[in-house]
């Protein structure tokens, strides 16, 4: 059955990454070539579910003339939705009671009522599952993966990773200068809860002394030994890159012991994973702090921690991400033109392919033991903490 798509919509369902507008431009230009109309949905699906919130309506008509003037480096014009999903929409009902309701049915009806044939969603790892459920309920959907941690399975490259990597490298080079001048060991923490791509590739690019990633539990005594070899009268500093999810090896001396511990709270939170009995407290910053503190004891050098955190998600996109964004946007339109639905656009060099969402969810793209980047790091003498 040939289904001719005439009117499509695009939205952002994940966190911000550099250059989201490039994807819009790719979608709009490719759709225009086919004679299709493109609408932008504001703030994830809020533009459809709560259009009354927007003075100019929840949908924005996206034309080639409009995207021509979009700044590639500016923030996304559509807004995004990081912590909302149509299956749990919080609202205050007529009795003034707060409740979470499933509005997925409403959403699909709204899409039909607005005569939108399909939606292209630019999303991060979490929203993939939500889009997968919407697809199972009958929404025609194509996803574009964004992640500055490059942790989405089934694609070699998520949109935004290259820009984050470039910024991280740039910043860590500055940290090197500071470390050199102060004769200290700089410990830089970058994003990467489960996957260490950003830390590993940035660490290689700056020739760090050590890179600690979640996939390889670390032993700081080994890192300290490596630093001991490298630091001498002629080179009086060190540089360590650590992913926020990096953890010490079981049996290695724990590094969180120095963080303030509340024994009462700890005893009341038996399943807690964090210091002092905390479980969900934001972990950002604790990896750099723990590593810096412990290294300071194991080496002769003073250390200082620095957390890049979400800083790497802002700013302009690199040339690679501009091309990738345009390519992903155009490929998503091609997928719809080929009557595909429930797929994610994936870069599997040298091809842009379409993979079913089911193959991308419930997975984390981590650094395998035999990764070429691990080999490169070892060849360069970068300590990986094991």
């Amino acid at each position, binding site marked *: 059955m040939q289904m001719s798509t005439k009117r499509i919509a695009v939205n952002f369902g994940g966190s911000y990454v550099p250059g989201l507008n490039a994807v819009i431009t790719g979608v709009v230009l490719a759709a225009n070539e086919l004679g299709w109309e493109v609408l932008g949905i504001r703030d994830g699906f809020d533009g459809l579910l709560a259009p009354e919130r927007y003075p100019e309506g929840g949908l924005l008509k996206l034309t080639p003339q409009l995207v021509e003037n979009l700044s590639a480096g500016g923030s996304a014009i559509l807004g995004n939705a990081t*912590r909302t*999903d149509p*299956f749990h929409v*919080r609202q*205050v009902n007529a*009795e*003034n*009671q*707060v*409740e*979470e309701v499933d509005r997925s049915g409403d959403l699909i009806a709204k899409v039909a009522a607005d005569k939108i044939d399909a939606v292209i969603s630019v999303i991060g790892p*979490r929203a993939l*599952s*939500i889009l*997968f*459920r919407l697809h199972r309920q009958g929404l025609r959907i194509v996803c574009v993966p964004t992640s500055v941690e490059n942790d989405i399975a089934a694609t070699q490259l998520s949109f935004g990773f290259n820009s984050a990597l470039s910024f991280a490298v740039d910043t860590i080079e500055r940290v090197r200068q500071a470390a050199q001048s102060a004769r200290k060991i700089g410990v830089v923490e970058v994003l990467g809860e*489960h996957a260490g791509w950003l830390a590993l590739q940035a660490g290689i690019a700056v020739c760090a002394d050590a890179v600690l990633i*979640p*996939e390889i539990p670390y032993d700081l005594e080994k890192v300290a030994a490596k630093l001991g070899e490298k630091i001498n009268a002629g080179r009086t500093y060190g540089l360590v890159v650590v992913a926020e999810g990096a953890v010490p090896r079981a049996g290695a001396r724990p590094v969180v012991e120095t963080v303030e511990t509340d024994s009462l*709270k700890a005893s*009341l*939170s*038996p*399943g*807690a*994973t964090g210091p002092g*009995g*905390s*479980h*969900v*407290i*934001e972990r950002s910053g604790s990896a750099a702090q723990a590593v810096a503190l412990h290294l300071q004891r194991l080496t002769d050098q003073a250390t200082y921690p620095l957390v890049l955190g979400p800083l790497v998600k802002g700013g302009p996109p690199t040339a690679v991400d501009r091309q990738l964004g345009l390519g992903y946007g155009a490929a998503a339109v091609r997928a719809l033109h080929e009557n595909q639905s429930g797929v994610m656009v994936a870069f599997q060099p040298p091809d842009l392919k379409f993979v079913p969402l*089911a193959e991308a*969810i*419930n*997975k*984390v793209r*981590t650094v395998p033991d035999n990764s070429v980047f691990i080999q490169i790091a070892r060849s360069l003498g970068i300590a990986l903490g094991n």
Partner: protein
Amino acid sequence: MENAPVNTSVLKGIILNIQHFSTHDGPGMRTTVFLKGCTLRCKWCSNPESIQPKPELAYNLNKCIGKDQCGFCLKECPESAIFNVDSDTQVRINWDLCTNCGKCVPVCPPQALYLFGQEMTVNEVLDEVEQDSAFYRESGGGITLSGGECLLQADFAAALLAGAHQRGINTAIETASNVSWDFMVKVLPHVDTVLHDIKLTDPARHRKWTGADNSRIRANLKRAYETFPDKKFIARTPIIPGVNDDEEHIRATLAFIKPYKNVVDYELLPYMRFGESKYGFLGKVYEMQDFEPPSPELLARLRAIIDEAFDRNGNPARE
């Protein structure tokens, strides 16, 4: 005014927990029955498992013995919401796919997966509560319904408290009162002591911190004070630093309650961060991570204002 008789061995409620020997939930030694479901979303909530009005899956990763030894849940889940990443042995939950069906719970030997909330009949609850009746007699205690918002399950709560009275057990409830008046009027006739929150004075700030403004709460409380002059009401404020730990709120609350002789006390409950690990178990994010419990000095200063209003300066009613 009597409703149709209810069958107390059939009518069911969703119970989160029955806690024995509570000393802070009303007079004497009490048994507190936590009903699941709430109508506010206070950012400091220490019982996030009590919020949703239905059974809810929780997962304690530290108890999982891993897919190599076990892995039954991976096969059992009909939604593919349980998965495993190659780099670790313990399973993970995809909370966006989980529908809280609970099928994984019985196949989890170490009970890393468990359900918060179970259905119980009125009589089942009463039978358990009655086991402590000797302590109630000694201490002047009884049953306290808490939550969540216990008034959300109004029919069940009313039947439970009426049943308790029939068995000679004193009754109390802890409520935020953000429900329809119909629910209040169903339950309150069966309550001896009403412990009710007054969290914030300003409606906009109330909405910011709890998800809804306080218009209905204030209207309900006024009407309750007036409709039930013989009931004992005790106002309470959970003191959250930076949110409502100011004298202004304490004085405004006193001004609100003092015209009513049946509001016999105003208590301050210091905020504690006991809930945060539970957020992780439910796959939720705790937003209050930067807040610290209030200092004893602050509490003493605020309590002095209350003692003055209740004319008990130099002779505080509480320890």
